């Protein structure tokens, strides 16, 4: 009888340590990418497809994988890391171990060291083979094992593929995921406490870009945000990472963005006819069986085709956005910052032709009439619950208070020029690309002087620095 409590205690201790150890097992808590609300609004058959027909989820996962097993979709404009080569000829050493001669396209060079090659096309596509010997000059790789299938010349294979995206994933999970979420949906555990909300990459929209209004963000833009943070938000500066780390993170963010946008495009193909809502209304005068039949046909050919064309579109727009052509470059150099130029800038700022004050307020305090007006959600054309301007993420997104001297997209004149010229993507700030660049420069000069005005809404002439207290003491609105 003196045993019973002892047994209980044993069991307790046992459970405890088992729980502790099981917490460390590999299987527990595998990280996963979440699907967008749009996907989950589709009718289940559209999401999951059937055994042999891919639904949206399958189409997505086959091209992007999950956080433990990333898929590198070659056509995506992302530097996954590694060197792409083609198999020249394949010889066999006396010991029966095959030696592969790898050719790299002109301009590129083979890496000094190489650990493995991964075949992308050919018989053994998807197979990764360790390299026992490597000659960087000739590109001869002695394979550690014999590939399962025969390797034909012309097969494409990667040398040490995916290294960048790998370290990007690791860095992202350590530094970014708790706000931006594992899948870049801006909904990590910390996100709920932050205003403004962390960016949801999946719309493929980044606010502060150097590119023109119809382009996406360039690598450079994402890099700037990572390095210097966004003043006035919780996005901190990660300046002190190495260049490799910066590069890896930027590429992984691009990867997540493309995944999200690809998902959105797939959903756009289906949502009008096969969303849950559409299904309900259709069931009034159609039979479920017919709809399913139709859906399966659609998934089987139309969507399968468009999946590829959509991928090409994405690749194209993101690639071009990264090119010189997309950059916003002023046609004239900055108008020298003079009181005259500022006065002109203020006139333009207040003019009905440009309407800046409508949102930013006549004294630049970000309190224009638009901020108290109720507006409609442009897609559903329903009124928002709270007054003020909203962005494409449906978050309240008030115009900047220019008196604080905090410039989220950067404080260089060129940054402000680009904000005005290209607008702020995803927000209600329109593009002023047709406004003469001279005028834009005048406005820039005025805006830069606002924090130092002697009295709010003044002439925009900077006082002596001593009177510049308005930076830290803006009039409470």
């Amino acid at each position, binding site marked *: 009888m003196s045993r019973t409590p*002892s047994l209980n205690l044993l069991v307790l201790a046992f459970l*405890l340590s088992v729980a*502790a150890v099981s917490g460390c097992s590999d299987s527990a808590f595998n990280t996963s990418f979440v699907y967008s609300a749009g996907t989950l609004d589709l009718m289940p058959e559209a999401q999951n497809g059937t055994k042999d027909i891919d639904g949206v989820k399958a189409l997505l996962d086959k091209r992007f994988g999950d956080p433990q097993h990333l898929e590198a979709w070659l056509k995506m404009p992302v530097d996954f890391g590694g060197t792409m080569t083609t198999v020249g000829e394949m010889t066999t050493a006396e010991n029966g171990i095959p030696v592969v001669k790898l050719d790299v396209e002109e301009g590129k060079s083979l890496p000094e060291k190489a650990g493995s090659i991964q075949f992308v096309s050919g018989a053994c596509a998807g197979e990764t083979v360790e390299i026992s010997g490597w000659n960087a000059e000739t590109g001869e790789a002695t394979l550690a094992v014999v590939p399962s299938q025969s390797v034909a010349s012309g097969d494409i294979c990667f040398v040490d593929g995916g290294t960048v995206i790998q370290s990007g994933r690791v860095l992202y999970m350590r530094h970014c995921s*708790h706000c931006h979420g*594992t899948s870049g949906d801006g909904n990590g555990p*910390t996100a709920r406490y932050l205003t403004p909300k962390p960016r949801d990459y999946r719309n493929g929209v980044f606010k502060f870009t150097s590119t023109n209004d119809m382009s996406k963000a360039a690598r450079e833009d994402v890099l700037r945000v990572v390095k210097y943070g966004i003043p006035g938000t*919780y996005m901190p500066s990660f300046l002190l990472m190495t260049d490799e780390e910066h590069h890896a993170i930027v590429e992984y963010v691009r990867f997540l963005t493309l995944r999200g946008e690809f998902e959105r495009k797939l959903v756009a193909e289906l949502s009008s006819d096969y969303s849950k809502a559409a299904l309900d209304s259709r069931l009034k005068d159609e039979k479920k069986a017919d709809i399913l039949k139709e859906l399966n046909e659609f998934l089987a050919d139309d969507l399968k085709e468009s999946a590829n064309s959509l991928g090409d579109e994405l690749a194209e727009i993101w690639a071009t956005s990264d090119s010189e052509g997309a950059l916003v470059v002023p046609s004239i150099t900055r108008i020298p910052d003079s009181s005259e130029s500022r006065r002109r800038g203020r006139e333009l700022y207040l003019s009905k032709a440009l309407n800046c004050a409508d949102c930013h307020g006549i004294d630049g305090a970000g309190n224009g009439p638009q901020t108290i007006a109720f507006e409609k959600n442009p897609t559903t054309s329903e009124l928002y619950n709270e007054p003020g301007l909203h962005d494409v993420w449906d978050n309240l997104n008030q115009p900047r208070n220019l008196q604080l001297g905090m410039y989220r997209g950067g404080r260089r004149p060129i940054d402000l020029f680009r904000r005005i010229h290209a607008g702020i993507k995803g927000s209600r700030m329109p593009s002023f690309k047709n406004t003469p660049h001279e005028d834009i420069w005048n406005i820039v000069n005025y805006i830069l002087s606002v924090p130092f005005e002697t009295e709010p809404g003044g002439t925009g002439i900077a006082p002596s620095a001593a009177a510049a207290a308005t930076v830290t003491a803006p009039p409470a609105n």
Partner: protein
Amino acid sequence: MATVTPALDAHGHADDHSHGHAHQQSFISKYVFSQDHKIIGIQFLCTTLLMLMVGGALALAVRWQLAFPWQNMPVIGQLFGLFQTEGGQISPEFYTMLFTMHASVMIFLVIIPILAGAFGNFLIPLQIGCDDMAFPILNMLSYWFMWPAMVCFACSFFWAGGTAGPGNGWTSYPLLSDLPQAAPGSGAPQTFWLFGLTLIGVSSMMGSVNYLTTIINMRAPGMTLFRMPLTIWSMFITAILQAFALPVLTAAGFMLVFDRLGTIFPTTIHSVFFIPANIIVNNAEPTVGGGQPLLWQHLFWFYSHPAVYIMLLPAMGMVSDMLSCMCRKPVFGYKPMVYSLAAIAGLGFIVWGHHMFTSGMNPALGMTFMTSTMMIALPSAIKTFNWIGTMWGGNLKFNAVLLNCAGFVAMFIVGGLSGIFMAAVPVDIYFHDTYFIVAHFHYVLFGSTLFGVFGAIQFWFPKMFGREMNDTVQKWHFVLSFIGFNGTFFPMHLLGIAGMPRRYADPYLHGYLSHLLDMNRFMTVSAIIMGLAQFLLLGNFFYSMFRGKKVGRNPWNANGLEWTAPSPPGHGNFDIAPIVYRGPYEYSSPESDALGQDYILQTVPHVAGIKSVAHH
């Protein structure tokens, strides 16, 4: 003579009539809403032991993150199923909540109540020889006020599904704790936390008023102040500390609450005690106000530094009692012990500034606070030497009680010495808010106080339940806890010297800290050992409560009054109202020799008769 025999009976059998008064009580009034100081004390003890495990679990979660940053967290991670998509990793704001709640639970729900609440309640009437506390109902309330406090803490932690909770550290410095938008859990959870704090304050205040009155007014005949056991002295001084320091904290707490309510009722309540103007946090409107955050630090530490001694003095007193019993030897320098207790308490009120050496406080203040802080090391030193002196030449009984007391002394030395580094301002400028601090206060609060408590639990267990705890298990518990403890906290000194700041969820981001990961792993493993070891204590405690070996009134052959009462004492404690003839530490005295034993109860009259009887 005959009247004292039952009291003399070493292996005495509890007499039934001592329980006389207890019959007509219902179960509820006897064991739940009891006004009997013993029951209340035991209620406190069980509650705090439970909370000890809770706080420990939180600590282990913290250690987990430090050893395996951003890896999925076992046990707790699975319990709450946190952050599935994040792979169950602790998110940074949850980390801040973990260490905040660990400190809050351990300080306010474990250490303060277990000393004053549990042992203060149980021992004061027994040791000064009265039948109960001065205000039994107040006493009962002081226990039952802990529950709303615990509920408040629970609310603050589990608000919004387990990942909210105050994340501002137990010191909750403004503005972080003042502006709801400043940090996760600075909203409702922080307010709950403050209410919980206030309720705890109410509970301890009730307790201390009670202790003061009881100790001053209800001592048994002959129990002069300098015949009181050091336990009673320490409880007495602790009660004074609490009575004077608590109101300040309560006031500060309400000031903070009013500041916070300002954001909810901007028109009615809108104080800005701690809020300066034009602060922009989390993209909110700039603040209005002309408050001063430093004010909170002054008010808070004016309570919380004395509170450190509230968390230590009773343990010191109890250890003195236990040591002298286990060494069968009077306490070395009884009066110096009393005076140094008083000195610590006195100085404790004028050293709070040493928590603020880097806060931008006037340097002149820094100098005075440095000197007073240095001085407070003196009485502590005296006590240490006296404890060693007590053990010297003693007839040591190597049981877990003695070991825990020795552990107490050893750990207290470390904690005291590391304090000197922080007392010196220039050195503290470097050590402030590094792990050196963490090491220091864990050595004082865990190393000293808890080892003292572990001993005390075993020492007075027979008086509580009439049974004894298993000594072997207690020894296992001691050695595992001791090794685990030092393995966990001694390296923290080195981390501090290496400049690792506190409250970092991921120190290894910083180049100069990245090599400390392995050491942190080692510390975490030690912490886990220590944590598991506590199950031995609990197991032994509850097992012995029902199955332990029955013992008589005085199993340790100690001198104190409590040992003349039956085990467990019935309602009203003593079967004969005790009369005190001498101090509590007369072990191995000539008189006791005369009785042919190495102890002599305080109630034994020293009439020449006894000697002569012995001579025949």
